[in-house]
């Protein structure tokens, strides 16, 4: 059973869906790099043996009784972490694309900068080749340009899921977290609270097993979906600003 005090307040959250082939290796690497930290796999109702593999590898498993999608799965982990008193949560994907050796760098940035979120970026210091498909690279370029004026600063890798958050962000994300494609909208949710983020360079690796389900058509849907989500979030902010001004 994970314990926030014993783990120094640090939780490594691994969202996983049908990742039996890779999740065990990810857990072993995370445990070797961060021996004191608690490791929690959020199993999004996998149909394979992800849960038993994760348990055998020594992780605790939060099993969702129904498939919620990445955002719902990550949010469940955030909620549990907040309720159990964790100070920092670092998300590492169960497909092995995030290098666990970068986790200490993200944790260090969370502790030293005071930012509510730290993004592991494959582009901010030209680390590795990024392993990005052409449609995704196009999407990243579009979102970089879009987010620059909204966030008030440049974000090099807005689609990165390799992120760390502190307890302030956990409290917010427990209440409000996008269900599908959460990374970019989460940045806008944080901006609404005037929270800060910083990027640190990380390595991104190719998937260890299986194939990505992202197709060119899904990439287009992704771009439209996220654009809509971003603008809806901006409207919420504008509405509140206007209301505050009126009251003042």
């Amino acid at each position, binding site marked *: 059973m994970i314990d926030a005090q014993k783990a120094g307040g640090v939780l490594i959250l691994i969202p996983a869906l049908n990742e039996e082939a890779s999740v065990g290796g990810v857990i072993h690497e995370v445990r070797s790099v961060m021996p004191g930290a608690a490791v929690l796999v959020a199993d999004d109702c996998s149909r394979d043996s992800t849960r038993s593999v994760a348990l055998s590898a020594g992780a605790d498993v939060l099993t969702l009784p*129904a498939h*919620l999608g990445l955002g*719902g799965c990550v949010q469940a982990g955030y*909620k*549990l972490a907040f309720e159990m008193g964790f100070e920092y949560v670092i998300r590492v994907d169960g497909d092995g694309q995030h290098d666990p050796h970068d986790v200490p760098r993200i944790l260090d940035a969370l502790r030293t900068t005071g930012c509510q979120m730290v993004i592991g970026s494959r582009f901010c210091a030209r680390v590795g080749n990024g392993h990005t498909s052409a449609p995704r690279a196009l999407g990243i370029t579009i979102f970089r340009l879009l987010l620059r004026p909204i966030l008030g600063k440049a974000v090099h890798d807005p689609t990165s899921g390799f992120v760390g958050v502190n307890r302030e962000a956990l409290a917010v994300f427990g209440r409000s977290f996008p269900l599908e494609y959460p990374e970019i909208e989460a940045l806008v949710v944080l901006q609404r609270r005037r929270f800060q983020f910083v990027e640190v360079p990380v390595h991104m690796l190719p998937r260890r097993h299986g194939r990505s389900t992202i197709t060119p058509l899904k990439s287009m849907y992704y771009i439209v979906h996220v654009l809509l989500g971003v603008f809806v979030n901006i409207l919420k902010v504008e509405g509140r600003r206007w209301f505050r001004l009126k009251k003042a």
Partner: protein
Amino acid sequence: MDRLLNVMTLMSLGLIVLVLVSVRRSHIRVEYSVSWLVAATVLLVLSRSRSLLEWLAPVLGLGHGSLVLVMLACCIFLVVFYRFSVVISGLKDANIALTQRVAILEFQLRALHEGQ
């Protein structure tokens, strides 16, 4: 136009009967049948009000009373669909919260058992 009005009358009656049967068999909850019954009743009344449709046609800038009926039918069903989109969104949010809560409680319960 008479044929269109008669067809609309039959369709409205058919919709009312279908909804009532569905409620009786518990396929639709009573609170969600109200929107459909109101929509069907409004269409039934309009389809039997030829003079009203002919009066509305020039007011709405339409050339014929039958177009008024078609336009109003579309508007009514758009409102019904919108209402159900709101309902479905609320249900989805509730489902997500419940699923997450069940998972968290199950996790904590298992930890309690292991602790004992």
